[in-house]
């Protein structure tokens, strides 16, 4: 058993020489460490924070931003063991096959492999997030989702799909990786977790072919060195950029940035609220549409309206997951629309019930939605980041086409009616939330001119620096990234075992 080590207790000048150094103890870093547990590899897990939230440490995340209003950079992530899983909502859904494809109507889209390459890892990822027995779309449907029926949608562009949720135990929120897996990390003799250890620079060999060492510092003034055989950067879609760009002593543009890609293509999932009003002619929708339902086997599920691949292709839209929010009352004009339409279709709408609809959207990749270094520095002298946040009118237009199709399907099945509540940019931005899903900034592509890392997560041009997590997603999907980034990280774990062996 290896206890957690507080880096503040290490003597300055210490040199550690693990086989693999993982920078970052969030869901990617912990999943990777666990996948390497009990192997012959010595693994050092470097986490900047401690077991609990510390505002002084958290402040190191703050930065500047311009453009579309967005959460401050120190809000949507947490600098402590477990990272973002200390405040996540537990929403899990695997990405669809089309999310991996190069879509000609989505510039810069496409992964270097298909979903098949991820498939073997989803079940293990599902175990790690404790989302219950595996029952995604290919197996589960409404028949096991509890009381009520699925809304008929007549085989159009949207269908009822499912989220599964990271398990809530008692009043504890979804699986928080730091708390949940700290004992597993301690019990693995080959894993050494180091807390309060801030990597301040990735030092390359003079020829810029390898990582030579990592400079590590504590906020108490200690400095030491890690000389790993392999380094995996797993600090999240924002912090990965900062370390790569700031480590510019050998590569002046920053590590992996020889083609000016690091920090570009930043993305998140916009979550605009009350984008539409959905009326069910027959009365209340099944409860699994509006709230989480716990099945007999313990799985927690909730329905969402997802787009089919065929509709995405024909309608040239991105992915989206529209979810019922809450019941709403219709005003007189709305009642007139329901009465007139239902009577025209010969449907009884005397028990009609209306709901607001929210959404998680997939953004189109945009190279100018970008993180760069700012002139300010943090407590350890690292440059802070600046985000230029953008969202295109076309992103909203594409989702609007999806809502129109949902409205059409409700009419085609004589099940209901839909009102789209957002027409102009300001309508969408008025109720805009964000998923805090930091994606795309070290994108994956086998062509070094189009990607920072290759299909294995290896930084182009370097022999021993990998990147794990959603920063490598080249296109994003509307599905929440945690389950997917964990599956991808487990794939990386298998790759590293082969490489090092």
């Amino acid at each position, binding site marked *: 058993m290896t206890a957690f080590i507080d880096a503040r207790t290490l003597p300055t000048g210490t040199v550690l020489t693990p086989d693999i150094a993982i920078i970052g103890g969030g869901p990617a870093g912990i999943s990777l460490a666990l996948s390497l547990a009990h192997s012959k590899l010595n693994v050092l897990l470097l986490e900047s924070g401690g077991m609990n939230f510390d505002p002084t440490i958290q402040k190191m995340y703050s930065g500047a931003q311009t453009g579309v209003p967005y959460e401050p950079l120190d809000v949507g992530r947490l600098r402590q063991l477990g990272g973002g899983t200390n405040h996540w909502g537990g929403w899990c859904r695997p990405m669809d096959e089309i999310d991996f494809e190069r879509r000609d109507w989505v510039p810069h889209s496409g992964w270097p492999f298909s979903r098949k390459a991820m498939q073997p890892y989803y079940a293990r990822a599902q175990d790690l997030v404790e989302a219950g027995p595996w029952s995604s779309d290919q197996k589960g449907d409404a028949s096991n989702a509890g009381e009520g029926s699925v809304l008929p949608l007549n085989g159009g562009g949207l269908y009822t799909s499912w989220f599964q949720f990271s398990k809530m135990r008692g009043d504890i929120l979804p699986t928080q990786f730091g708390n949940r897996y700290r004992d597993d990390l301690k019990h693995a003799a080959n894993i050494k977790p180091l807390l309060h250890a801030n990597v301040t620079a990735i030092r390359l060999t003079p020829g810029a072919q390898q990582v030579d060492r990592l400079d590590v510092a504590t906020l108490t003034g200690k400095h030491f060195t890690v000389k790993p055989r392999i380094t995996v950067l797993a600090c999240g879609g924002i912090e990965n950029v900062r370390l790569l760009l700031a480590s510019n002593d050998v590569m002046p543009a920053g590590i992996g940035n020889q083609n000016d890609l690091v920090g570009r293509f930043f993305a998140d999932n916009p979550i605009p609220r009350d984008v539409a*009003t959905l009326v069910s002619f027959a009365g209340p929708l099944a409860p699994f549409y509006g709230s989480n339902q716990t099945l007999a086997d313990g799985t927690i599920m909730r329905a969402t309206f997802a787009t089919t691949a065929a509709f995405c292709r024909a309608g040239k839209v991105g992915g989206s997951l529209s979810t019922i929010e809450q019941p709403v009352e219709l005003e007189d*004009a709305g009642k007139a629309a329901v009465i*007139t339409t239902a009577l025209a279709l010969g449907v009884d709408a005397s028990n009609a019930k209306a709901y607001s609809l929210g959404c998680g959207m997939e953004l189109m990749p945009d190279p100018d939605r970008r993180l760069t270094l700012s002139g300010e520095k943090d407590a350890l002298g690292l440059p802070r980041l600046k985000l230029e946040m953008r969202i295109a009118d076309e992103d909203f237009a594409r989702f609007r086409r999806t809502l129109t199709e949902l*409205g*059409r399907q409700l009419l085609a099945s004589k099940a209901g009616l*839909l*009102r*789209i*509540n957002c027409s102009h940019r300001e309508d969408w931005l008025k109720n805009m939330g964000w998923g805090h899903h930091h994606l795309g900034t070290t994108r994956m592509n086998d062509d070094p001119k189009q990607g920072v890392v290759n299909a294995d997560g290896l930084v182009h041009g370097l022999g021993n620096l990998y990147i794990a997590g959603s920063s490598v997603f080249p296109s994003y999907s509307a599905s929440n990234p945690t389950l997917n980034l964990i599956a991808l990280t487990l794939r990386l774990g298998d790759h590293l075992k082969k490489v090092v062996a």
Partner: protein
Amino acid sequence: MKRRDAIAGVVAAAAAATAGLYRFTNLFVKHYAPTPYDDVLAQLVDREQAARLGAGIPGTLNPATLAARLRSGLKPGLAAAAEADVAAGRMTEVDGWVLPESVALLAALASRV
């Protein structure tokens, strides 16, 4: 006057009054002035609600043009026309409501006569 005749007279008077109220007031059913488009508007079960919906439809089409478009489309009946619109993707937005085109046009006509 016999009691039976009196009762019959009262019943007849009440019936006449009811018929009058039905025909000449909006107490039981809303009456509309005759229009050249009544054959089209007859497709609406609740013209008042349709007119309320139609009030939200901007546009320059006058009632005659609307009625002309609707006459051909509504030959199979409003329900069939609406279903055909939906199947063909002929949707119109009215204050954000995604509606079959024929329903929206009929509501527009109802609001403009």
